[in-house]
């Protein structure tokens, strides 16, 4: 059955690929060099990681060079793309045939279209800035070369993820990103918390990977292929049940990578890594992979309304959860992490709205990439000056000591809470509009989220840069070196103009992405001016409440008891407890016999496991008695079975 299907699929594929409706051309000229995008950082990683100590001196320069070279290549491709007609901007270039086994073929080929180039520019652009910033931030770390190697590896894997033209190749990039992020989170492995966090990110991401594997297996089963063109072209012919299942599996994968409910818990712990890493992982790239996956799979979600509803629900829950967690955290990086969760929730929600929301999801993703990277790097700059202090209750009044950091951070702040004309206003407002156009509940969720965002971000600003000084150190905190502030300026600039530029420059991002994502417009249930006014009023209310609580009164240095909600939020809304009950506990049962190193008794742990496989395993294991004669009995029994099996087949 599968072979007929795949033959059909191949026939469809040769007719001309589908990238959400536009024809995909064979890459020629400069587009044939798309692979260079990945090759630069990959080469950089290889040199840095395999080169050993010889490259210690110039390691950071090689790392930055590789990333910037990739960015330049991205800009060149983007410029070349602008020269093509708007419906002819998708190009594939086949690198080599990866597997050709029976009816299943996987090509390593790259798909460059409007969607992937947007990601390429974000990844390499913001990535390069983070590289530059890291030169200063990691200056005193003796393993800086290795750090840059991992960063390059991360960029390469992420680029492979967004440029792949086949789910399997995408998955390879997906895993590569996971590996690099694991290495980066655990980079300071002498800190026990870092090692634990890395472990958690590893485990939770494996749950997400299961979703990816299931999705790909289903695709092979139903479509006989995992190539984008074949899958999207034949999705219409498949039953709704299968398409919905694939959509849900992909959503599970996206949840793991993008820290969406219920797989969100690793993100907050992942803040243990060196700060630029947090910025890179959160803002620019890794967590947006899930949103990319959903938008890229638009052709599947368009056919599966139920899966889309699930995406919206996940997005809404995460956006509120992240915002509430962000309100209660005193650790500046964790507060930002909660905010990231919440913003990704916005994107996921928008992506779940279908063609009406895909473009806005990507739009918000890009602007968020600017202002969140800006704020993470700003937080890193604050920590740099404060001797790695992360508790905001020990900050206060830093705007005078660190003026550049303050100004740039403020740009990011205004952008994230959505004050016009900063970047976040345009993108978030579009999502709120689309959400209200879809239905009231999602609309209210996004509106509430906007209010809470304003609250916790104002709280963060006030506690860090305003109010009384609560730091103990004798000399005042110093401003960071210019190699660190330059990227801050760049990102702050983007936070200011990014939204406006993306929305109105040329035809704007919505039209730019339309050939890939499709376009759809719903009627708002109320006039647009009214919605904008309500949104802004909510934001102002959030700011005002925060000012009343943290601006007028002095911030206490000890942690107040707080309401039950605050306590819950401090505990990540019991996300860990949830994960423990749902994933860890059954997993532990399964592993108790297996991962016995966590147990005291080594061999004793093997006995008495409750799980099916563990129990079955130890039971089967007892057959291995060590006695030759019992082995001979087993064999002779086997002989009987084999000969009988041969004879029985012949019975009429």
């Amino acid at each position, binding site marked *: 059955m*599968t*072979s007929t299907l795949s033959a059909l699929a191949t026939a469809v594929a040769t007719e001309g690929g589908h990238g959400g409706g536009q024809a995909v051309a064979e890459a020629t000229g400069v587009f044939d060099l798309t692979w260079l995008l990945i090759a630069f950082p990959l080469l950089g990683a290889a040199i840095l990681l395999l080169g050993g100590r010889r490259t210690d001196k110039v390691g950071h320069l090689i790392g930055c060079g590789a990333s910037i070279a990739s960015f330049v290549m991205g800009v060149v491709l983007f410029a070349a793309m602008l020269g093509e007609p708007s419906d002819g901007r998708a190009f594939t270039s086949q690198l*080599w*045939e*990866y*597997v*050709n*086994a*029976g*009816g*299943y073929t996987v090509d390593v080929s790259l798909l460059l279209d409007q969607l992937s180039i947007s990601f390429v520019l974000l990844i390499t652009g913001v990535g390069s800035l983070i590289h530059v910033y890291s030169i200063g931030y990691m200056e005193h770390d003796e393993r800086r070369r290795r750090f840059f190697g991992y960063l390059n590896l991360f960029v390469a894997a992420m680029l492979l993820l967004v440029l792949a033209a086949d789910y*399997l190749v995408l*998955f*390879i990039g997906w*895993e590569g990103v996971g590996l690099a992020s694991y290495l980066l989170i655990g980079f300071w*492995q002498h800190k026990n918390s870092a*090692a634990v966090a*890395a*472990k958690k990110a*590893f485990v939770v991401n*494996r749950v997400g990977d299961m979703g990816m594997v299931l999705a790909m*297996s289903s695709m092979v089963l139903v479509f006989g292929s995992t190539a984008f063109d074949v899958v999207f072209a034949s999705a219409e012919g498949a039953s709704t049940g299968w398409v919905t299942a694939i959509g849900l599996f992909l959503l599970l994968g996206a949840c793991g990578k993008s820290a969406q409910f219920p797989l969100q818990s690793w993100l907050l712990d992942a803040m243990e890594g060196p700060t630029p890493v947090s910025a890179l992982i959160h803002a620019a790239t890794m967590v947006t992979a899930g949103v990319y996956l959903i938008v890229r799979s638009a052709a599947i979600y368009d056919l599966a309304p139920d899966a889309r509803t699930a995406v919206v629900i996940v997005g809404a829950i995460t956006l509120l959860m992240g915002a509430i967690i962000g309100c209660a955290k005193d650790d500046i990086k964790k507060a930002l992490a909660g905010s990231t969760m919440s913003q990704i929730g916005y994107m996921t929600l928008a992506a779940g709205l279908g063609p009406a929301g895909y473009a806005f999801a990507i739009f918000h993703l890009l602007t968020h990439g600017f202002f969140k990277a800006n704020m993470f790097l700003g937080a890193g700059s604050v920590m740099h000056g404060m001797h790695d202090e992360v508790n905001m209750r020990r900050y206060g009044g830093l705007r005078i000591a660190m003026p550049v950091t303050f100004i740039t951070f403020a740009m990011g702040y205004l952008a994230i809470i959505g004050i016009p004309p900063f970047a976040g206003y345009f993108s978030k407002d579009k999502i709120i509009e689309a959400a209200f156009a879809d239905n009231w509940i999602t609309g209210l969720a996004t509106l509430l989220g906007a209010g809470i965002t304003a609250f916790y971000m104002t709280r963060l600003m006030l506690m860090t840069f305003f109010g009384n000084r609560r730091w103990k150190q004798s000399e005042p905190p110093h401003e960071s070196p210019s190699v660190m502030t330059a990227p801050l300026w760049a990102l702050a600039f983007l936070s200011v103009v990014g939204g406006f530029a993306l929305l109105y420059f040329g035809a704007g991002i919505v039209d730019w992405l339309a050939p890939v994502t499709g376009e759809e417009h719903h009627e708002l249930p109320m006039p647009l001016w009214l919605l904008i006014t309500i949104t802004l009023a909510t934001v102002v209310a959030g700011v005002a409440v925060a000012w009343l609580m943290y601006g007028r009164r002095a911030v206490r240095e000890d942690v107040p008891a707080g309401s039950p909600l605050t306590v819950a939020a401090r505990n990540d809304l019991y996300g860990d407890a949830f994960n423990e009950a749902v994933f860890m506990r059954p997993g532990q049962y*399964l*592993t108790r*016999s*297996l*991962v*016995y*190193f*966590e147990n005291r008794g*080594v*061999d004793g742990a*093997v006995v008495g496991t409750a799980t099916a*496989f*563990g129990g*079955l*395993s*130890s039971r*089967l*294991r007892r*057959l*291995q008695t*060590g006695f*030759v004669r*019992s*082995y*001979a009995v*087993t*064999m002779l*029994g*086997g*002989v009987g*079975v*084999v*000969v009988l*099996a*041969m*004879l029985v*087949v*012949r019975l009429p």
Partner: protein
Amino acid sequence: MNAPTIEYAELAPLITIFGAAVIGVLIEAFVPRKVRHPVQVAVALLALVAALVQVILLAGTGMVAAVGAVAVDGPALFLQGTILVLAIISVAFFAERRLEAGGDAFAPAASTLPGSEEERILVRERMLQTEVYPLALFAVGGMLLFPAANDLLMLFIALEVMSLPLYLLCGMARRRRLLSQEAALKYFLLGAFSSAIFLFGMAFVYGYAGTLRFGEISEALTANIGQDGILLAGVGLMAVGLLFKVGAVPFHSWTPDVYQGAPTPVTGFMAACTKLAAFGAMVRLFYVAFGGMRTDWQPMLWAVAIATMLVGAVVALTQTDIKRMLAYSSIAHAGFVLTAMVAADQTATAAILFYLATYGIATLGAFAVVTLVRDSGGEATHLAKWAGLGRRSPVLAATFALFLLAFAGIPLTSGFVGKLSVFTAAIDGGAAPLVVVGVIASAIAAFFYVRVIVLMFFSDPAPEGPTVAVPSLWTAVGITLGAAATLLLGIVPGPLLDLAQQASLFVR
């Protein structure tokens, strides 16, 4: 009467290896003890490399040599080439002398009593066992012949020539000699038992067909002369003999014990090369000779494949010794290969060839890594001792992790492509349910591979943990080659897949 002609050129690889093995025996007798070790290693390596070159030169041949007894065709040459490559690396591991102070992995004299004064003197004088090299060469000769054997008698002889030296090699460990001797005894008794069963089955097949040649047996099947009971029993018994060698359930019981007890370089050699040779022989026998009655043996292989995959994967879950765990993993892998065998067509042959090559490389590398992790008692094979190895020796742990990922079939490793090809071959051959079981077994198996990775990288090092010995250049190069091949075949498998595809046609 005409004397039969022998195609010496086509049989050159076999002649080279057997000749070198005989020379090795003569060296034992005539070369002074002091220089024996380097001479033996040199002879063995030279012979293996020469044979490899001859195999490569023969590529593309498709004929039956030695009056129909030996096939020189794609599958045979592909497997012979792979076995020779693996054997070269194995000999390099055999010759490793930096891990034990001045010794290698073998007892200075297998005949001395463990713990006796005699043994101590030999150890102190740094005496080296050199018989292992001619023994290994004989075994390699048998392995080369096994997948090329084109009649029943040659098949049996090859089986024995391959097995007998292996029985001895298993009993020669320098450390833990009691376990090693026990492994040899178990392997020998069960091996001889299975050989006898195999031979009895052979007698029945001969009785049915009246000939020993594979081609003529195939013709006899088409002629359908009745008395099928004898044939079916014969095929079943022969299958048992071969399934024993590949370690399929329920004929697998020797595998964990022998893998654990044997000296680790021998375990690696055995795990990689024996399985290749035995599967090669099995595929040829069942496709060429018994291809006409595939509907009779397919259900039997279905059952065996399912049992093998599940038992291998499930029992490996609770293993605490790394060598035993790898043994069960090798059982599960035998099951994966059997899924493709059930399909019984040319695609399946190609998939099996590719799978065996990648599996052999990764296995050899993994066992070589095991030899490097040591404590005062020799190799530290208990899993608990591997905890935190990633912090102590990240490169070694990462290499081992790579091999484990290949076993688990994770993308970007050779194991993934291998698994994909056998499973697609099985689906195309109409064995989709087997593939479902295969995927489940893979998932279970992935669990215990990942568990070792987690153990190495995420848990705290044991307080009196093992040290990682610095190997000689030979071993280092061997492991590096294995890791590089595993990664490379995972990223660009095309050339080897094509080669396997071209080599997948049997001469009849």
